[in-house]
């Protein structure tokens, strides 16, 4: 008889499907029958026979292997549970450390997701663009986000590739909105209704009007509820600034997660009446944003070539060239939120790293304790695979419980986190999105699995002899690995601490740096309405007379608010033609520098602003820019037509945050170009409420239609660094978490090492060593690693801090002392954590430690 084996493919498939024992018998039986059949009926029939056998037998065999598998699974799980509960304390530490790190990582990850979603939720996103311009100024190219209204009209009319186009004013304006007798100041946006044809916001009721139907307004759900409660808003009339009546044409879903948020859209064309006539035909004003929807698959580069000359062809001396900027990139790249995304991404990664590293460290330290158990089991006949599986299950159980715990923590803390960061996603949204939830689950499983492998394999490979003789614990490789992990943990914690403290220092620096104006004890009143504007000088002077008021001043903008106008139309003798710097402007009065305590460096104060319209101040930065002798008395011109005389140079002040350099400023008293919107009042603190009441009455006598709108200057300044303060808070929290986990890890580790060295301690004590000597012996070891972790941490921390600080025009130097403090703190913490355990062991009765054998 020929000995032909069963064809390989059958054997492979079977081996894969059923248990080993069953496989050996079945395969053997099949081979015997195969040979018999070949000799009886030939190869073809033999194959048919084998296939028949396989098809009929395999299902049953698979079922029995499943049954067997589940019984084994049950037994592994039971063992795992038992082992975990045996060491309640250490299991608890493991689970907690892992859970906290994981929860924190999930929260930062949610932040990342939130940022990535802003502006993305529109139909046909790839067809949405903003028209921006490249400004060729002073030899370099700046990108401006604005586009003049006339350019929009031209492009829309002449290029069929643009399906829809809309223009908005860049910022909201704050107007009084009244329905019957309900009145509130609301932020409104002037813009074209076609905005809603470009961006697919949900229209809840009504219809989108055409752009030239200027009797309409569109409001969002929140505003509708606020003014109309249960009535249907569509068709009702709202009065704006007591000047315009608009009918509500439609209600749209309240906007969120988009950079263009507004609540009320007022028809763009009325801007000719609100700002100045001809605004809508203007070719030179860039304070507008234009958004368009193009046809599908537009070749952007060739289209940009078509539109780039639009402005220069239509306006003398223009130097801007329009192009299409993809809307989906706006939030991340133009607003540079990608920076935050990266920071939080890095933090997420580090937190996950800490959580897993900590877990690996702890469990491998603990697995030493089980070495004896493993040795015995191996001798008795357990297969290595079984032991590994056993430890694997234990590890998995711990990490999964940690994950569940983390889930609970996330659920609990998410509302506060969402609030704090103004997130727009909701937990439910995130969970129901398959991609995200499977991503998170994947990460959890991956972390769990990776964390399991090392302890499982290390323990399972223990040679029984080595283990039973008790030498394993102090093995070289084990020690190095664990120390390496501790190193990483501590390095990360130190990095986070350094970064936190440095950010705090910068923020404190920014908050405390004198802004150059006296912001204390000053409030402002916002003038609204024709009547108030007409009587501005009267109001200012009357308010100045209130007892307790030190001075009152009119201005177009408030210092520190970051608001100002700028233009490149200023010129002076000696300025080169090609040099067209952007210069900022504010309209002020003769009391401005007195009210705000701004120093006059050269020249004299402006007197009597009502009459002397062409006298201006300039600030130091502009003075340096002009760089002429005898600036006082020289002239500065605007758009080649108006001419102003410089009467004084005032000291620089921060008109905005310290993120920006101080810009060159012109302060003039020509209310034709810019109107005075604010009265700033310097007061004596004791009388502040009376002063406010009096002021309110005075304004009301002129015009009572508008509610009294006031605020405090120091609050404006206080709010400037909100986002940095939030970053600071966040990093602090995560720094604390990282340290907490590291200390947990250190605690667990040190207690185990101490446990193992119990006998050694006992012997030393018997030989006469004091507790302190033993303590020092242990600390020497740990000190080495803590110092090393600092050496690793410092360069990394330095790199990130330097990068972050480079964004700020005004910044502290790298705070070297913080590095040292953090190092010392880490060291002290390590010492405290470790000492606790050591002292406990050292105080134990040597007889007890030496007795157990």
């Amino acid at each position: 008889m020929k000995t032909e084996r069963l064809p390989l493919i059958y054997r492979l498939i079977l081996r894969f499907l059923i248990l080993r024992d069953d496989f050996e018998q079945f395969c053997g039986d099949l081979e015997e029958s195969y040979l018999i059949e070949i000799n009886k009926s030939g190869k073809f029939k033999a194959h048919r026979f084998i296939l028949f056998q396989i098809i009929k037998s395999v299902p049953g065999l698979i079922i029995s292997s499943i049954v067997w598998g589940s019984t084994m699974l049950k037994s592994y799980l039971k063992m795992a549970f038992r082992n975990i509960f045996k060491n309640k304390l250490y299991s608890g530490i493991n689970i907690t450390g892992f859970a906290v790190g994981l929860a924190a990582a999930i929260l930062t990850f949610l932040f990342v997701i939130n940022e990535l979603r802003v502006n993305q939720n529109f139909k046909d996103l790839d067809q949405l663009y903003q028209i921006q311009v490249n400004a060729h100024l002073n030899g370099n190219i700046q990108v401006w986000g604005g586009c003049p209204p006339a350019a929009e009209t031209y492009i829309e009319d002449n290029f069929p590739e643009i399906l829809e186009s809309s223009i908005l004013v860049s910022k909201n304006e704050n107007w009084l909105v009244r329905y019957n007798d309900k009145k509130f100041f609301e932020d409104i946006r002037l813009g074209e209704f076609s905005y809603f044809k470009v961006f697919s916001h949900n229209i809840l009721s009504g219809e989108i009007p055409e752009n030239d139907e200027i009797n309409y307004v569109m409001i969002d759900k929140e505003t509708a509820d606020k003014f109309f409660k249960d009535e249907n808003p569509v068709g009702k009339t709202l009065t704006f600034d007591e000047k315009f009546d608009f009918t509500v044409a439609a209600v749209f879903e309240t906007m969120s997660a988009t950079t263009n948020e507004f609540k009320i859209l007022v028809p763009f064309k009325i801007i000719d009446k609100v700002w100045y006539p001809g605004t809508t035909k203007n070719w030179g004003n860039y304070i507008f944003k234009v958004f368009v929807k193009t046809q599908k698959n537009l070749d952007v580069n060739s289209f940009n070539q078509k539109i780039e000359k639009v402005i220069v062809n239509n306006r003398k001396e223009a130097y801007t060239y329009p192009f299409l900027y993809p809307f989906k990139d706006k939030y991340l790249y133009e607003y540079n939120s990608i920076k935050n995304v990266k920071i939080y991404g890095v933090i997420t990664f580090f937190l996950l790293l800490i959580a897993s590293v900590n877990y690996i460290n702890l469990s491998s330290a603990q697995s030493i304790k089980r070495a004896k158990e493993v040795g015995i089991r191996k001798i008795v006949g357990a297969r290595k695979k079984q032991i590994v599986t056993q430890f694997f299950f234990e590890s998995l159980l711990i990490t999964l419980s940690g994950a569940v715990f983390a889930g609970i923590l996330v659920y609990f803390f998410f509302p506060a986190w969402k609030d704090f960061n103004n997130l727009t996603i909701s937990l439910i949204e995130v969970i129901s999105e398959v991609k995200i939830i499977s991503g998170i689950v994947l990460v959890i499983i991956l972390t769990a699995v990776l964390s399991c492998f090392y302890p499982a394999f290390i323990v399972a490979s223990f040679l029984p002899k080595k283990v039973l003789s008790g030498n394993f614990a102090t093995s070289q490789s084990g020690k190095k690995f664990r120390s390496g992990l501790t190193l990483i943990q501590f390095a990360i914690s130190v990095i986070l601490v350094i970064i936190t403290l440095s950010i705090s220092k910068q923020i404190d620096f920014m908050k405390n740096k004198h802004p150059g104006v006296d912001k204390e004890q000053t409030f402002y009143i916002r003038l609204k309405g024709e009547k108030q504007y007409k009587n501005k000088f009267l109001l200012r002077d009357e308010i100045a007379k209130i007892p307790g008021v030190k001075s009152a001043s009119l201005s177009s903008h408030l210092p520190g608010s970051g608001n100002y106008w700028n233009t490149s139309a200023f010129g002076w003798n000696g300025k080169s033609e090609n040099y067209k710097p952007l210069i900022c402007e504010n309209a002020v009065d003769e009391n401005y520098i007195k009210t705000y305590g701004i120093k006059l460096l050269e020249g004299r104060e402006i007197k009597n602003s009502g009459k002397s319209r062409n006298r201006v101040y300039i600030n130091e930065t502009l003075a340096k820019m002009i760089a002429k002798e005898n600036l006082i008395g020289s002239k500065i011109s605007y758009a080649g037509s108006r001419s102003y005389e410089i009467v004084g140079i005032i000291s620089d002040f921060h008109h905005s945050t310290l993120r920006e350099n101080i810009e060159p400023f012109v302060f003039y008293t020509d209310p034709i170009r810019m109107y005075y919107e604010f009265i700033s009042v310097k007061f004596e603190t004791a009388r502040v409420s009376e002063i406010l009441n009096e002021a309110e009455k005075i304004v009301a006598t002129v015009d009572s239609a508008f509610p009294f709108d006031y605020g405090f200057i120091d609050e404006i300044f206080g709010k400037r660094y909100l986002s940095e303060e939030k970053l600071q808070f966040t990093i602090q929290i995560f720094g604390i978490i990282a340290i907490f986990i590291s200390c947990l890890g250190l605690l667990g580790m040190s207690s185990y090492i101490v446990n193992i060295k119990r006998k050694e301690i006992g012997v030393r004590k018997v030989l006469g060593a004091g507790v302190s000597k033993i303590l020092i012996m242990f600390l020497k070891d740990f000190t080495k690693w803590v110092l090393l972790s600092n050496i690793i941490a410092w360069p990394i921390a330095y790199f990130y801090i330097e990068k972050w600080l480079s964004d700020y025009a005004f910044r502290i130097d790298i705070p070297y002392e913080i590095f040292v403090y953090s190092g010392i703190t880490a060291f002290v913490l390590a010492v405290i954590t470790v000492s606790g355990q050591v002292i406990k062991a050292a105080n134990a009765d040597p007889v007890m430690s030496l007795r157990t054998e």
Partner: protein
Amino acid sequence: MKLLTRSEEIVLLAIWKLNKDAYGVPLRELVSDWTGQEWAFGQIYKSLKTLLSKNYVRQYTSAPVSERGGRSKHIYELTKAGSEALSEIRKVQNNIWTVETIAAFEK
């Protein structure tokens, strides 16, 4: 004693019949011959497992055999309980199929 299923009974009988040579291949052949149907190995194994769990048969491993690549076969053998079970079945069989019943049935 619990009654055996028909398959289990047949397999048990086959084990008894084959004496020392009761393993997968001959068992399957014998049973297939008796019943006139081709039995799958899986069916045999299934019955074997139940019989084992009821302790009617015991399993032992033969010496390694070259045809199986050096691995051993599982061989099955009737236990005392197993032969008792077979007698039970025989008794029940006789109780049902008495001579008179057989005669009446054949008519």
